[in-house]
Each structure stands twice: as structure tokens, then as C-alpha cells.
């Protein structure tokens, strides 16, 4: 009696063990593979993508907050800083002065800045740009479709997110969260000299 039962008991235990092993393996696989992405020194949220592993930025055309058409392809050949923001987003309001200063500072070097205004109304967004003296244009992305295009290549979890795109149209660096001037300077230094 006992003898005949032993086999199923151990089979069951083996099935459990195999299931546990599968879970562990899956967890390990899900976490692996970072393709050489490095963090900017002293920052958890700023990353650099090494040349050859830079995701291509999607192309898009959109309407700016002031009503003109903008094609992203027009920026090809320049280093572009793309900032996702919203006037309702508190960290974006904290970050705005830093971006305004950095944009002015890098203008002579040919670095362009472009805002992507997410889930916003134009009146509030324009009030924001006036208030913080934002010196660069922003496109309206009230339906998050442009955010969606970018999310296919970089993990944008919300606003603010800042992407630095190299001269070939590839995403070379990103700050997920509020960007500091140091983080932007570090990323731009890498991208402009490569």
C-alpha cells in the first residue's frame, strides 16, 4: 500500500519543484539583458545608450502649441533634446527653469530642444511656457500618440521624461524623471562628441 503510493507522492513533489524552478528561471530571464546601457555618474534616473545600441527615434509630424506644423525629420543632423511635460505635472514645473537655462546655454552649439506637451490644454500649456520663459517650441500630444510612438523604443513611464537624440536620429541618452542640469550636461557632453 505504502509502496504503491510513494511514486505519485514523489512525482507530485518533482512537479512542484519543476514549477518553482521554471518561475525562478522566468524571473531571471525577465530581468536580464540591458545591452550595455550605463548610468550617468551619480544618477539613478539618467542613462546613456552606447553607440550601436541606440534605439532609433520615431518620426512624426505634429502641431505646435502655437499652431504650426512640425516634422521631426527636420531635426535630422542635429542633437535634439526632447522633453515630455505637462502644465499639470508638478515635477515638470520644478524642472522647467533648468531646461530653459540649458537650452539657452547649448543653443550656440547647435543643440535643439523640443517639448512634447502631454494630456494638456493649449491655454494652460502656453501659460506654462510664458511663465517659465521656455525658449523652444512644444508640440501638443494631448492624446499621447507621440508618447506611444516613443514608448515603443524607450520605457517612458510618465512625465517628466527627457530624451537626447543624436545627429543620426538615435536615442543616445535619457532621464526618466526630473532632470538636473548636471545630468543633461553629462549626457550632452557624450552625445556631442561622438
Amino acid at each position, binding site marked *: 500500500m505504502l509502496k504503491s503510493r510513494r511514486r505519485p507522492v514523489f512525482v507530485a513533489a518533482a512537479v512542484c519543484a519543476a514549477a518553482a524552478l521554471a518561475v525562478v528561471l*522566468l524571473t531571471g530571464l*525577465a530581468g536580464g539583458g540591458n545591452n550595455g546601457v550605463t548610468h550617468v555618474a551619480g544618477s539613478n534616473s539618467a542613462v546613456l545608450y552606447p553607440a550601436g545600441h541606440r534605439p532609433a527615434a520615431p518620426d512624426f509630424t505634429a502641431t505646435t502649441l502655437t499652431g504650426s506644423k512640425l516634422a521631426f525629420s527636420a531635426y535630422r543632423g542635429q542633437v535634439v533634446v526632447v522633453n515630455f511635460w505637462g*502644465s*499639470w505635472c*508638478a515635477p515638470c514645473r*520644478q524642472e522647467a527653469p533648468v531646461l530653459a537655462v540649458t537650452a539657452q546655454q547649448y543653443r550656440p552649439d547647435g543643440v535643439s530642444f523640443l517639448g512634447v506637451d502631454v494630456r494638456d490644454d493649449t491655454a*494652460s500649456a502656453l*501659460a506654462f511656457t510664458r511663465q517659465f520663459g521656455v525658449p523652444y517650441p512644444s508640440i501638443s500630444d494631448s492624446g499621447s500618440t507621440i508618447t506611444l510612438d516613443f514608448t515603443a523604443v524607450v520605457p517612458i513611464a510618465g512625465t517628466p521624461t527627457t530624451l537626447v537624440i543624436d545627429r543620426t536620429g538615435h536615442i543616445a541618452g535619457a532621464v526618466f524623471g526630473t532632470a538636473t542640469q548636471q545630468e543633461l550636461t553629462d549626457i550632452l557632453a557624450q552625445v556631442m562628441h561622438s
Partner: protein
Amino acid sequence: MTDVRAPEADPFESPAEPDEPGRAHRDPAGGALGLAGWLKWGWRQLTSMRIALVLLFLLALGSVPGSMLPQEGTDPGGVQQYYTSHPALAPWLNHLGLFNVFAAPWFAAIYLLLFASLVGCVVPRTFRLAGSARTLPPRAPRNLTRLPRSAEYPTTLAPAEAAEVAATVLAGHGFRLRRPGSDSNHGDDEHWVSAEKGYLREAGNLLFHLALLGVLVSVALGGLFGYKADRLLVQGTSFSDTQSALDEFYPGRFVTAHDLGPFTITLNRFDASYITSGNQRGQPSSFDARVSYTAQPGGPARTFDLQVNRPLPVDGAKVYLIGHGYAPVFKVTDSRGQVVYDQATPFISGTSGNFLSQGVVKVPGAQPEQLGFTGVFVPTAIEVGGVLESVFPAADNPVVSLIAYAGNLGLNSGVTQSVYEMNTAGMHQLTSAPQLLQPGQSLKLPDGQGTITFTGYVPWVSLAITHDPGQLPALICGLAALGGLLLSFMVRRRRVFVRARASGPGTTVQIGGLARTDASGGFEDEFASLAAELRSAHSQHEGE
């Protein structure tokens, strides 16, 4: 004459299918058990039906605080509120994980133990059932007249021939047969047929147990690879299914933002209609959200009529209409005459009914001071003793009541705020009493601080996006479990034995039969007709 006897006992021996094979019999304290012995004992305890039931009960008990206390995942505001109202109790509840029950280690422990217990119970049982479904019927007993059903008659056929005829008849009825073969040690004088039918019962039992395992695996699949998300969508606006555009996102263990389906949904129009008379007045009669959507960027735009219980299936996910409300549209100009706010602002209906809704308007871009408004939207307003009430959920006489503030909204410090709440700590009130506005009316703020205009209102809907890869497998397994259970209830295993013995010049044919008595009746009739058929087959062959 066919002689059918009443049952004396049920000798249906069933060592192949014990329900709970002697699990509790062995006492670990009784003998000297090693570590392996203890482990084996523990495993046996864990996989016993008793422990499984206890765990199931604990699981149900453990879910109770999850529905009675506010939970971090679904209602963080409620948790905050609980902390303020029960300052002494709340930290203790938090230590016990009662504000996040379904993620608490003790809850996971119960769930995993239950899972292990069920797997440990079902898998060995499956093997036993599979073995039992394969076994041949036992050898025919010596004295068939002792069986619950029996019959006896003479025939002129030789015993071997009589047995052969009986085997043909029984095989024709779909019985599984066993004949005296090489295992027989009784020589050539043995002529019998053992026949058994109703193996489908074991197959059903097997199916039930496997399907039960399948249900467990499906539920786990849903939890690991599924996700849930919520989004509030104002009429005339759209959103994309990406994490930054979702209000809430609850991914499964192995889900990342990358796994979200890249669809975009626009709410073209939402209509709610209500019963206008009788004692059901004010009850909703229909909700109808007309949306257009693209399954992926650049794909063709399609339209869909979203209703309660009629979700939109898109890219493996389902989008449900779960709520609605009003979003009054406000236009705010600041002291310099610049429009600094112009949008529909979702207000949330409270418990007071008839969609009396509350919300805030935050205008951080106003100069020289930031402006803020707390408001109430009343769809069908009447004033009762100086208090605004809503008497009907449709917007028949919409009114907003606003209190204006100026100062610092606290947004520029970078600390994230809820869009439905306003921190008035850094602000001063501009209007002493709530100001009532009808659509098109404006409120001029004192000291030339600006103007707010209530330009109109639009509806909003709240959508729940769910992706549960375990749903379909769980349904299939559930149906299979039900089917298996039905089979094992309806089908009985029954055995018929035929023995042919030489008696004088002819042969005596004995037929015996038995069935499990716990299932539905009918075996008596089946046996009687089989016996009659056997007898007539024998007499037919006599004539040849």
C-alpha cells in the same frame, strides 16, 4: 426461468480508487522517523483534503480585511484617511499588511500552500485514476449466485461454446472483457467471461482532476502575465494605451509597460439616459459610449459602441465602460487678460447621489498669483433651504458652485498632487461664499485678479483595461471540470460475469452482475435485459 436475486451485500472491491488512502493512520511520534520521514509526513499532511479545506477557509478569511479596509493599490487616499481617523490602530494594521492584503507575505503563504496542497493532492490522484482506468476486470468469482444480481439457466451447448457466445454478446454491448488465459491455473475446465463497463467514469474523474489543475494554472497565468489599468476619458478627447497616459496601472509579475497593446481610443460621444417617471425615476436606463479606435499606430480607425457589459476587445485586451460623470468646462483669464486655462475638468460624483460632483480647478499659470477653485457641479439643481441639491442625474439645470482662491498651489515645488484635490494651505480665499454659475456665466475675481467662465459641460467615462491571458484557459478548464464531474456522477462502473459449467449432457450458464450502488439506479433493468439476451443467444446457437 431467469432467476434474479436481491442483493445481499456490495462486494465491489475498490482498492484501485480509494478516496483518502490511509493518510492519517501513521503517527510520526509513534515510530523513529528520520528527517525524510518527517518531510514525508509533512507532505502527506499538507496534501490531505482536510488541510486543503482549512487553507481554502483561511484564504477566504484573509480576503475579508481586503474588502473591509482601504487598500494601498486601489484606494491610497482611503488609507491616508484611515490613518487620520485611527492614528493608534492604523500603524498596527499596516505592520500586519492589512492595507495591502493581496500583496502581504502571509497572504502569499496561504495561497502558495493551498496551491502546493492541491497539486500534491491532485497529481498522485491523477496517476491512480489513470491506473484504475487501465485495469482489466477481475477474474470471475467462483459462485456467481452470491452477487447482487444473478441468473442461471441450462443450455445444450458445450461450456467453451457457451462462454464464446456470451463473450460475443457482451463485447457487442461495449464491455471490456477478460477471459481465462495463460494466468489461469485451473486448467481447461474453466470457461468464464469477466466483463466491465463504465470506464468513462474514471475518465471523467481524471478529466475533473486535470481540469482543476488547469484552472489553478490559468489563474496563476492571469496573475503573472495579465494587467489592469484605469483611465478617465473626457468626451472629445483620446488616449493611447501607454503607461504615462493611464491613470492607474497594475501590471502582473512578468508584465512591463512594453507589453501594453499600442492602441488609441477616442471618446466621440457619451449618452446616458435615465428613467424619468415612476418610483424608478433617476435610475439609469442605458449608457452608450461611442468610441473610435486604432489597434496600432497608423492602423485603420474603427468605431465601436461601448456599453456596460459590452467591452471593446482590442489587441488581446478588453476595455470596459465602468463609470461616467460630468466635466464642466472652465475658461480662466488672469489679471493681464490672458487665457491661462480653458478645458473640461472632470468632477467626481460623491455619495450624495444624482451626480452631485466635486472637483478642483488649478490654474498654476495665472499671474501675478496662482489661482485655484474648489467646485461642485449640480446636474439638475434646486435650492432647498439655502443648500444646493441635485434632483436628477441628467444635466437638466446644470449649475456650478465655486469658491475661489489665490496664492501658491504648491505645484512648483515638484511634489506630485492629485488632480482632484487642492492644497489650500498656501492660498487665501477670494470669495467669502460659494458663487453659483450657470453655463455661460462668469465670475469676476476681486482686485482684478481675473475671471472664470463656466462655458458648459461634457461627459466623461472611466474605462478599465484588462488583459487576462488566463481567462479563456480558465473557462475551458472550468467547463472540462464540470463535464468530468458530470461523467463521473452519471456513469457507473458495472461488471457482469458469465460462467459455463458442464452439467450432465449440457451446460449450466451462471450470470452474475454488480454495480456501484451509490450512483443512479437502472442496473437491475440493464442486467435483466442482458441476461435475457444472453439466454436467447444461447438458445439460438442450440438450434444451429
